[in-house]
């Protein structure tokens, strides 16, 4: 969706402000939010694409002013209620009132953290040949789905060059909708900045995205 999360190329957000000796969390609740998201994912309540989709569907005016972990927290409220895992009035009262639903996997235990602390694999056994090879000229499609996609707006409808074939990976646009983890070929596609931003762009700049095959056509 063309949401406020898709920030590449926007102006007006001011300078980057690095923070010396930044802590892992700025408040205890931030750590709880991060950990709850990991634990719920480990139990199979949602996958990474569904979680991103839920954050992207937060109201734009909230999302642009909320902090990172505030967005995570609010999205998880929507996810647990939307999936029927928790009733809205339970969140309001702060206590469980109804029985739990069965999740696909058992709850994460402290002595079995490894599965969540090491990233899983998003590669799948290839079911078809890749359509493109390194060096091929391609063009990104002009798509504007109202659902989740990983093709950023700034990189749509532009010619680029396939630099790497990264493998056959779970396709987020379908996975976010709960349509399973059917995969597509994934490529690193590189663009000249002058193609993305016009003749005044930095001539020494190249930008690449990780593009799934359905985002691409032959140039």
């Amino acid at each position, binding site marked *: 969706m063309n949401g406020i999360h898709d920030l590449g190329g926007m102006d007006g957000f001011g300078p980057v402000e690095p923070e010396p000796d930044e802590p892992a969390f700025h408040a205890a*609740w931030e*750590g709880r939010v991060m950990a709850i998201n990991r634990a719920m994912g480990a139990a199979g309540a949602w996958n990474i694409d569904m979680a991103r989709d839920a954050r992207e569907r937060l109201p734009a005016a909230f999302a642009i002013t909320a902090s990172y972990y505030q967005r995570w927290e609010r999205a998880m409220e929507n996810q647990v209620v939307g999936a029927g895992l928790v009733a809205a009035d339970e969140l309001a009262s702060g206590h469980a009132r109804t029985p739990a639903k069965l999740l696909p996997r058992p709850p994460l235990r402290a002595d079995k953290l490894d599965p969540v602390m090491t990233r899983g694999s998003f590669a799948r056994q290839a079911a078809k040949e890749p359509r493109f090879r390194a060096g091929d000229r391609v063009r990104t499609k002009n798509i504007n789905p109202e659902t989740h996609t990983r093709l950023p707006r700034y990189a749509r409808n532009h010619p680029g060059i396939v630099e790497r074939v990264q493998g056959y990976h779970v396709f987020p646009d379908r996975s976010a909708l709960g349509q399973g983890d059917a995969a597509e070929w994934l490529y690193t596609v590189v663009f000249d900045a002058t193609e993305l931003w016009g003749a005044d762009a930095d001539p020494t700049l190249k930008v690449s995205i990780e593009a799934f095959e359905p985002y691409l056509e032959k140039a």
Partner: protein
Amino acid sequence: MAGHDHDHHHEHGSELSETELRVRALETVLTEKGYVDPAALDAIVEAYQTRIGPRNGAAVVARAWVDPAFRQALLDDATKAIGTLGHVSAVGDHLVAVANTLERHNVIVCTLCSCYPWEMLGLPPVWYKAAPYRSRVVKDPRGVLADFGLRLPETTEIRVWDSTAETRFLVLPMRPEGTDGWSEAELAELVTRDSMIGTGLPASPSAK
């Protein structure tokens, strides 16, 4: 809305902000229903506070600086190469190491969310997740690098990698001059987090 989150105000005599209350309610309900175990949440938080941070990435970079065969293996398949280093935590799939050279400087971003090589660098800093960096680095990277006090030669190619899938990127910075004969452990001390994102360079050996 901004006005709905009073994180710095204590309304109604409460000692907790609205966000803290919401997080507490969410965790309590999920715990009472048996979906999460608070001890597991504690352990995840603790891992990121103590074990998983940029020293992991620094050890990988230092090894690549002293061992040309490892460097090549890292650039060919970073996940596989790091798996051969016993002292670095396991790294998941699809890590891609990209090498800085005199001709090319690499910078990592995720414009759509905040994808970041957590296992190598720990949790991303706030600026990496925030709008100023994500919006501007794909269009005006030299301006962004200037915010970090980094100015590159005008002829250096800048390559920005937007992490739009589950591939993760780690910048392999150039080994600083004046470090001949340094041990791997000494070299790792020079490797800053930002030098592995591309928004900085390794620390100068003379500053050590």
